[in-house]
């Protein structure tokens, strides 16, 4: 049997869902720069890409690009529900794929669309990379969210987490 979170192997995941909202995070969110993200082309599927001054910011951008598939404008998604989880992986690229897959799974299982993301990344070098994440959103509503395709899973195709010039980039292809 696999563990309850469903992700085994080198990725460890720990969940706490629908906890009360805390002011500290909201304050940090307001202080942060606008999320920068885009989608890129890949055969039958879609690539998602985020940019930022840190890997965590680039991860947030990639999450926005992912949920732009489910809601035309992720920033219009109401933050009615909050999900929190923690992940661990051996590398930043593995961490990105695990992060996006966790969001896809949560969205698909609980029928949610997310529009607001918080990410904190620690570790690296000799130890594993750890990620703490919060995602806020609401039940998916086809009338308001204008989706075209439902993501099936994040892949290692075209995966890249790297610092280019003065900013971080986090990207991979999502199977849709």
């Amino acid at each position, binding site marked *: *049997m*696999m*563990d*309850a*979170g*469903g*992700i*085994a*192997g*080198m*990725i460890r995941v720990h969940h706490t869902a629908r906890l009360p909202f805390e002011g500290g995070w909201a304050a940090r969110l307001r202080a942060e720069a606008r999320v920068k993200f885009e*989608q*890129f*082309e*890949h*055969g*039958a*599927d*879609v690539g998602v890409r985020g940019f930022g001054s840190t890997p965590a910011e680039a991860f947030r951008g990639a999450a926005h690009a992912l949920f732009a598939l*489910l809601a035309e404008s992720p920033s219009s998604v109401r933050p009615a529900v909050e999900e929190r989880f923690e992940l661990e992986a*051996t590398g930043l690229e*593995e961490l990105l*794929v*695990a992060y996006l*897959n966790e969001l*896809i*799974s949560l969205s*698909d*299982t609980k*029928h949610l669309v997310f529009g607001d993301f918080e990410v904190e990344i620690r570790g690296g070098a000799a130890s594993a990379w750890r990620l703490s994440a919060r995602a806020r959103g609401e039940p*998916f509503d*086809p009338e308001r*969210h*204008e*989706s*075209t*395709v*439902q993501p*099936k*899973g*994040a*892949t*290692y*195709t075209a*995966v890249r987490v790297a610092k280019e010039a003065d900013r971080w980039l986090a990207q991979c*292809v999502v*199977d*849709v």
Partner: protein
Amino acid sequence: MTAFREVEPNVWELPATGDMRVPGRIFASRELIDALDEKVREQLANVASLPGIVGAAYAMPDAHWGYGFPIGGVAAFDPDQGGIVSAGGVGFDISCGVRTYTTGLKGEEISEKRETLAHDLYRTVPAGVGWGGAVRLTPDELDQVLLGGARWAVESGWGESSELARVEENGCMKGADPSKVSRRAKDRQLGEIGTLGSGNHYLELQVVDEIFDAVAARAFRLEKGSLLVTIHCGSRGLGHQIGTDYLQRLLPLAGRDGIRLPDRELACAPIRSPDGEDYLGAMRAGINCALANRQVIGALVRRVFARHFPKASLELIYDVSHNTCKAEEHVVGGRPRLLYVHRKGATRAFGPGHPELPEEYRAVGQPVLIGGTMGTASFVLVGTAESERRALSSSCHGAGRRMSRTQAKGQWQGKALIRELSEKGIIIKSHTAKGAAEEAPGAYKDVEEVAAVAEAAGLSRRVARVRPVACVKG
């Protein structure tokens, strides 16, 4: 990288160089090979380097850039030679496939009620992004689905038991092990049985336009003008989560097992290993999920027809699966060998006489259903004796994309496209106009060319061309 060279008409070889254990082989016309994405060649070479691969790494005429394997990729592995099973070689939408029914009606018989019928199908079969199907299951019931496949569906009142022989594996994939499927994967599926999903999935009303092979057409009960219904969908959230789970689990094992992975998406494990067996058990459960899903949708479609055309009689032609790894016996080097054949965006195409075919098709071969686009034709083909020698009894699965979704959205406007198709006599029922634009017929390769090449290369033979009259898009 070395270029493909044409070794026979429509058969191109990529010689084994570097880490490749076998050559790559693609079935394509000059036009298709010239338009081929460079990435397909790279991915084919990567697949050819995996342990235990037999014969060649194959690509079908509709091949395009996938993840790990190209879409339209076929590769067989020998468990006795250290052969592997790859989660990436099957993909996320496990056993995504196509089933087609004859309806006992002629296309012109529905002309006046076409809009009503299309609307009722759109209303009755849940499609598009969103959640909630016709069936809500408990976790125990879902385990029964994963063990029983289409047989579970029939036993639960969805369809006829006579249909099962016309589904691969007689509707029930053996060796499925629901205990190897994570709780998360099951949670994603509890309300999803009987849903089409989104993307390129569809439900289509089609009319037979042209017959190429009268004998096979008679066996499949196809006549010019007959109305058909085709369903294209897969294993939904459960299959996607099995793919995600096992890709993560198998990825770090390659080093331990001494396997060099040229692409992380090829994450795999030896067939004869606990990890390989666990994946096979879970993947087979995913196949059963997809078979049950299409069986339930077929029964929903039958109900819709009964409401509008009491004399209609929906009879299954066949149900093919695209994204699978199956243990099959193939003759290689003059002797039969048990091989684990990965087909990623490719269709099994057994030739005449194969023992797994239902009796009524045994003389002609297995129906091969190639889905076109919502504005172009689809094809019914039949497996040939030659297809065994060509590519381990495999053929193509669709037109294959030639343009990305982003490009397509830039080039076509959903609403204008739907209007244009309606002027051509094709009703489109889509939950999203933008989604329709992403699936624009022009974003795909020419299905006529793909089907013609599949025949010219000896992979399968054309039986009939069908044209769409109404399409419910996911």
